[in-house]
Every structure is written in structure tokens, then in C-alpha cells.
């Protein structure tokens, strides 16, 4: 989870970083955090006070649940007047993880819908969405629409009967024709569309310095290795094909877990990937071992070797792309890393570009790892239906995209603020298979052991078998319900 949190934070940086003059927004995010901490401190203070004073008079307001506010408005939604276009009135309650700049972008996105229908969107942004939804399913107090934590939770909620299918809500022909097939299938349960993507992001982009690497997009992964090696040899000295930075405090190793997940998905396909995520594929199995070994080959051709990778903070991964002479040719990260290129690497806009991770196994061509904001409907009020249908349209999604910080899975959305994002969106739209971060969807103990395994493997590649055996034993103990 720590890793997840880190990536989440990076995601925020990415958002603020891309918007020109985004300083104000960044400050807003920080503000939000500190007020929350203050609030928590105050709650603690109250709790401590009650204990110390030995006072037993119940103060229910101290209980920090947001669930009642979440469900309250669903009642307001039902007596909506006439359905089918025109003035709907009423309101829709929406819960999402977006706060700060992202929340503003979402509100800007729903504004035209509000103006058109006369209905109101009551949005609550919270990081604690998992808790709120799982308690909501037990109590029945659910928002009309909600951002879902991930595909796994979507399956779970749909099985519990809480999520309503969107098949007759969204214009299916338009949606499936224009959206990346991998994202459509990820949101579909038993042939019924259940979750739509408001926005998404992809991992596994190979970044390079445009002044150094000029060999163009490689046709295969082997071609990428060959072209990288060639470029590194031309530079000479200590230069290697890759730069890797694994250091990230208690979550050290997560960048390597992204590498390995990318290998598993592209080498062995989504079925193995899903089984592996769910704990049904052992780490010692040939498929996973193969992925570790592929990462081992990367480390063997990494600037400074594995020990330097362990000593390098992940934000500084790209520094050697832009040093003189360069230390490496490629850095594998999501789009957020461009921020670090500029801040710690001293790169300028236009000095870097990326090539998507080439396919490794023709059977699983177009497999992409990423993340995204999956949206589902819990109450099928006319307002909620109308809003979901609207959010799925390219017109709605281009609003957020135009504000920066988002990729749309819809190929009709093209108004990206810069070329890098446009290119990343093209890679996303072409995704035939789309998977979320495997580590983030494993039990925490498993993810933690995964990160640690990456670190020890990078330090000493000869220990691979004992590292994988240890991961197997964590797997047996951590997946038990």
C-alpha cells in the first residue's frame, strides 16, 4: 500500500506538473492535506479528552464517517420529474478519490451537464473510498455514482448486486467502437458493461533523451535492447542501456515491481497476470521466474549495476539521461517521471520523448499496464443514468483532457495540451489488453515482500531461487482470508 500511496502522490505531481503555471493548484493540494491532518489531530484530542476525563457521554459527531452524507442524496434523486432529456432537476451524489486540482477538473467536466439538465452533482472527494464503499454495501447507504478503487473491487461489488449494469445506459455501439478494447473488456462483467473509464494512465514507457537516442521506435523488445545497446556503445565509457532507481524509503523496490509486472503481462499474458495477482500463480513458476530473469538482464545492463540502482532514488532515475556524457539510454516509467526529468535531471521540454513498451509475445500483442478512474453506478436514478451516459462521451472527457493531467481511453478525444500526452494517449487507445498494477492489488504483505524481493534481487542476482521460494511462502500465508 505504501507503494500505492507513493504512486498516488506521483500521480498528483504529474497533474500539477503538466498544467502550465500549476503552482496554485499544488499549494491547494498541500493545504487540503494539512487541514485533514489537523482535523485528525483534533479528533484524537477529543478522543483522548473523553478517555482522560472518564466522561462517558456519547458524542457521536466525533465518529469520522462520511457514509450518511454519501447516501442521503439518493433519496433526493428519486423524485426526479420527467425523464429523457430536457430538464431533469434533482441531484446525483458522486464519490471519488479526486481532491484539489483533480476535483476542480471533474467539476468542470460535469458543469455542461448540470447546465443542460438542471440537475446538481453533489461531489465528495475522499482518499478513503474503499472503506466507504465496502461499509456502504453492507448498510445500503451508497452514492449514486462512485469512482471504484479497482477492477477487483468492481467485480466484488457487482457480485454483491450493488453495481448496476450500464449496458442500456451508455450508447454501447459508440462506446465500444471508440474506446480502447482493453479498457472496455476490463469494465465488463458477464457481457454487461459495469464500469466506464473517466480517465486513465499507462505505465511502461521507455523514456530517452532526444539528443542521444535517434534510432526511432523499436519494432520489438529485442530490437529495443539492441538499439539501446548500440547507442550506449556509441557513447562509450560507463554508459549502459538502462538507468534504474529503486530507492523509495519503506517502499523501495516498487519501480522494479513495475518492470516485472510489465514483463509478466507481455510475456505470459493477462490470464497468468490475473492468476498471479490473485495468488493462484506461484512465484517459482516458470512464467514469473522468466519475468524476474528479464528484469535481471535489465539490471545487468544498468548504469552502475544493481547496487547503484538500489542506491538511486526513483525520482533521480532519469538524471543520467541528461548528464554529459550520458550514463544510459532508456528509463522505464510512467508519464509522471517527466516532472523529475525537469526538476532533478535539468532537462528542458522537448529534450525527452518516449517509445511505448514493444510487444514481447505476439499472442498478447497490445497488452498495456496502467491505472485509471473506473466509474460505476449504484443507484439507477434517471439523473445518475443521464450523468453516466454523459461522462462516457468524448465531449465530456475532452474537457478534463484539455485542462491537462488526464488521458482519455476514447480515441475521439484529441485536444491534448502537448505532444507527449498525445502520444501516451495513442498508446492507451491502442491497448487491446489493459491491466492495473498487480502489486497494488495483492495483499499488503505480498506487495511488501515483492518490493523487498526486487531490492535483494537487484543486489545479488544469484539468489533468485531462494528469493522466489520466500515469495511463495509469503503467498501461502498472506492470501488466506
Amino acid at each position, binding site marked *: 500500500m505504501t507503494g500505492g500511496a507513493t504512486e498516488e502522490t506521483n500521480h498528483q505531481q504529474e497533474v500539477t506538473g503538466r498544467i502550465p503555471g500549476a503552482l496554485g493548484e499544488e499549494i491547494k493540494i498541500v493545504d487540503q492535506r494539512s487541514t485533514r491532518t489537523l482535523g485528525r489531530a483534533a479528533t484524537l484530542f*477529543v478522543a483522548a*479528552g473523553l478517555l*482522560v476525563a472518564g466522561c462517558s457521554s456519547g*458524542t457521536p459527531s466525533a465518529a469520522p464517517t462520511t457514509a450518511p452524507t454519501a447516501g442521503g442524496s439518493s433519496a433526493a434523486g428519486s423524485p426526479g420529474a420527467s425523464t429523457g432529456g430536457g430538464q431533469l432537476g434533482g441531484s446525483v451524489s458522486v464519490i471519488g478519490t479526486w481532491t484539489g486540482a483533480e476535483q476542480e477538473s471533474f467539476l468542470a467536466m460535469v458543469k455542461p451537464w448540470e447546465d443542460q439538465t438542471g440537475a446538481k452533482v453533489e461531489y465528495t472527494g475522499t482518499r478513503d473510498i474503499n472503506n466507504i464503499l465496502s461499509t456502504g454495501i453492507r448498510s445500503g447507504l451508497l452514492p449514486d455514482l462512485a469512482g471504484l478503487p479497482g477492477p477487483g473491487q468492481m467485480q466484488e461489488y457487482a457480485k454483491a448486486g450493488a453495481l448496476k449494469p450500464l449496458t442500456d445506459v451508455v450508447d454501447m455501439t459508440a462506446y465500444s467502437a471508440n474506446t480502447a478494447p482493453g479498457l472496455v473488456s476490463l469494465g465488463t462483467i458477464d457481457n454487461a458493461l459495469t464500469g466506464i473509464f473517466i480517465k486513465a494512465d499507462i505505465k511502461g514507457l521507455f523514456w530517452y533523451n532526444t539528443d542521444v537516442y535517434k534510432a526511432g521506435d523499436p519494432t520489438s523488445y529485442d530490437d529495443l535492447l539492441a538499439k539501446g545497446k548500440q547507442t550506449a556503445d556509441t557513447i562509450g565509457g560507463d554508459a549502459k542501456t538502462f538507468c534504474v532507481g529503486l530507492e523509495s524509503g*519503506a517502499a523501495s523496490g516498487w519501480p522494479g515491481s513495475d518492470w516485472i509486472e510489465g514483463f509478466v503481462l507481455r510475456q505470459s499474458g493477462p490470464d497468468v497476470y490475473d492468476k498471479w495477482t490473485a495468488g493462484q500463480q506461484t512465484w517459482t513458476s516458470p512464467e514469473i521466474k522468466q519475468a524476474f530473469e528479464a528484469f535481471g538482464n535489465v539490471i545487468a545492463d544498468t*548504469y*552502475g549495476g544493481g547496487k*547503484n540502482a538500489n*542506491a538511486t532514488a526513483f525520482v533521480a532515475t532519469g538524471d543520467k539521461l541528461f548528464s554529459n556524457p550520458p550514463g544510459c539510454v532508456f528509463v522505464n516509467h510512467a508519464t509522471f517521471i517527466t516532472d523529475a526529468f525537469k526538476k532533478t535531471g535539468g532537462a528542458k521540454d522537448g529534450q525527452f520523448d518516449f517509445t511505448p513498451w514493444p510487444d514481447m509475445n505476439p499472442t498478447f500483442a497490445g497488452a498495456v499496464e496502467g491505472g485509471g478512474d473506473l466509474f460505476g453506478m449504484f443507484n439507477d436514478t434517471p439523473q445518475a443514468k443521464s450523468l453516466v451516459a454523459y461522462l462516457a462521451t468524448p465531449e465530456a472527457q475532452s474537457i478534463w483532457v484539455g485542462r491537462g493531467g488526464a488521458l482519455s481511453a476514447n480515441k475521439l478525444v484529441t485536444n491534448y495540451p502537448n505532444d507527449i500526452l498525445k502520444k501516451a494517449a495513442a498508446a492507451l487507445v491502442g491497448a487491446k489488453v489493459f491491466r492495473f498494477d498487480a502489486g497494488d492489488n495483492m495483499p499488503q*504483505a505480498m506487495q511488501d515482500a515483492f518490493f523487498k524481493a526486487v531490492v535483494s534481487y537487484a543486489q545479488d542476482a544469484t539468489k533468485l531461487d531462494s528469493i522466489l521460494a520466500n515469495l511463495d511462502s509469503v503467498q501461502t500465508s498472506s492470501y488466506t482470508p
Partner: protein
Amino acid sequence: MDTRLVAAILIVVGLPAFLIGYILLIETLLRPVPERWQGRIRPWLWLAPALAFLGFFLVYPTFNTIVLSFQDRFSKAFVGLNNYAYFLSNADTLVSLRNNVIWLVLLTALAVGLGLLIAVLVDRVRYEPAAKSVIFLPLAISFVGAGIIWRFVYDYAPPGQPQTGLLNAAVTAVGFQPQTWLQDAPTNTIALILVAVWIWTGFCMVILSAALKGISVELMEAARVDGATELQVFRGITLPLLLPAIAVVATTMVITALKAFDIVYVMTSGNFDTNVIANQMYKELFTNNQPGRASAIAVVLLVLIVPVMIINIRRFREQEAIR
């Protein structure tokens, strides 16, 4: 009104009022009791609130931890000694246990030894306060801060690159290869212990220096007049008289070593075979969601500390008896 404000007022006004009320109440209740019984009952009644607090915040959690350590990860079914078996069979925890032993021996020996040495040496110089202040200063730095400072000291860059780490800069300046100080076991554990020594030496020095000032000068003068060498004075007079202070300081260091957490968490996060049991306990509880295993580790930690405390209390009693 805001509930928080109500609670704050309750604490500030209510708590003292409650305690005064309690004392008045027991005095009223004691009045009809015969005089000689009053003397026996009163101390216990006066002590009762403090005992209740101790019981609730110290004794009850201890017993609850012991109970939890015999239960499964949901703290429901009893699983016998499973959590302890896990602790004693898991390779990771055994490494942690080994590292704690290294911490205990090295931190105690180095911090107390250096503290004593500096206290004795500095006792004779004119700039004593200045020297002591400098050595004492690191104690004012938080462990997390110290960890970050020392991560810079141990920083690594590949050979041939400018070394930003102080230690590697020094090592390469005299012609050696840079080392990954925090990654190479077992020396990386020693590198971490040195950070703790850097912090705690000042503490040991201050306590021992104060004890040293308490030794009467006449005693040493008499020995010197009788022809004792400086070393003999130190071994025959200074050291025995300092022993109680050394025992106190050493106990503190032993407990500090067993509780070591922050430095390891910040500098290596337990990677590269540097984990310690406190870090392991934290991880079992907050990352792995295994309260049973975490409690078992806590109990082991408690059991390890108890003998040290008993020895310490016994010494303390003996000293009291002498006085």
C-alpha cells in the same frame, strides 16, 4: 457548541475538579473509621487513581498483548504457540534477532566506552564545557533526522563519478573504490549502529561526567600521594566509584538497542539483512496485518528486557540500603 471545545473544557476544568472531589470524598468516608485503620487505608485510596491509570494504560495492554500473541490474525481463535513458532522459524526474524544482539553488544560497549573515555579525558581540560557541548549536540537531533544526515554520509555513486557521500569521498580520495556502505552485510548493520553511537555517546558522557565530579578529590589525592599511577587511580578508585552510574547508563543503552527502530527504518528500511525486531514488529502489525505475530514479537522483546530491569532495580535497592 463544538464538541471539541466541550471536551477541552472538560479536561481543563473537569479533571482537577474530579481529583479534588475524589480526595474530599475519601476523607469524608474515612472520618468514621477508627484512627489506626485510617493510616493503613488512606495511602491505598490516595494511590488508587494513579494505580488505576497504570493498570489501564500499562498493565492491561501488557496482558492483552500476551493474550493476542496466542491468537490468530483476526484476534479471535487461539492458535497456541504458532506465532512464537513463526518468530523462531522465519529466516527474516532470525536475522532481526541476530542484528539486535549485535546492536546490544556494540551500541552498549561503544556508547558507554566512548562516553566514559571522553568524560575522564575532558575532566582535566579547560575547554571542558565546549567539548562536552559538541559531543552532546547530536542527542538533540531526532533519530529520523540523524538517519537522513547519515544517509548522505554513506551515499554511493558508481566509481569514477563525483562522490557526494562524505565517507566515499574520503575513501576514493585515498585511492580505494567507493563502497555501498548500507548494502553490504554484515558491515551495514555496524554502519547503522555507528549512527546510534554518534547520538548516544553524548548522553553517556554527561551522566558519567556528573558522577565523576561526585568523587571526592581527597580520595584521589591520597592515592597519588601514596604513589599510585594515573592508571592505578582510574582502575582502583574512579572505576569502582563510577560503577553505579555506568550500570544505569549501560541499562539505558541495552534498552535503546533492543528498541532500535527509527534509524533502521529510515536508512535501509530493513533491507539488506539489517532488519531489527522492533521494525519487524511494526511491519507485522501495520503492513502485514498480523496482530498475533506482532504481539508475539512484542512479548519476546518484553521478556528480553525484563532481566535487565530486574538487575537494575536490584542494584538500585542495594545502593539505597547502603545509604
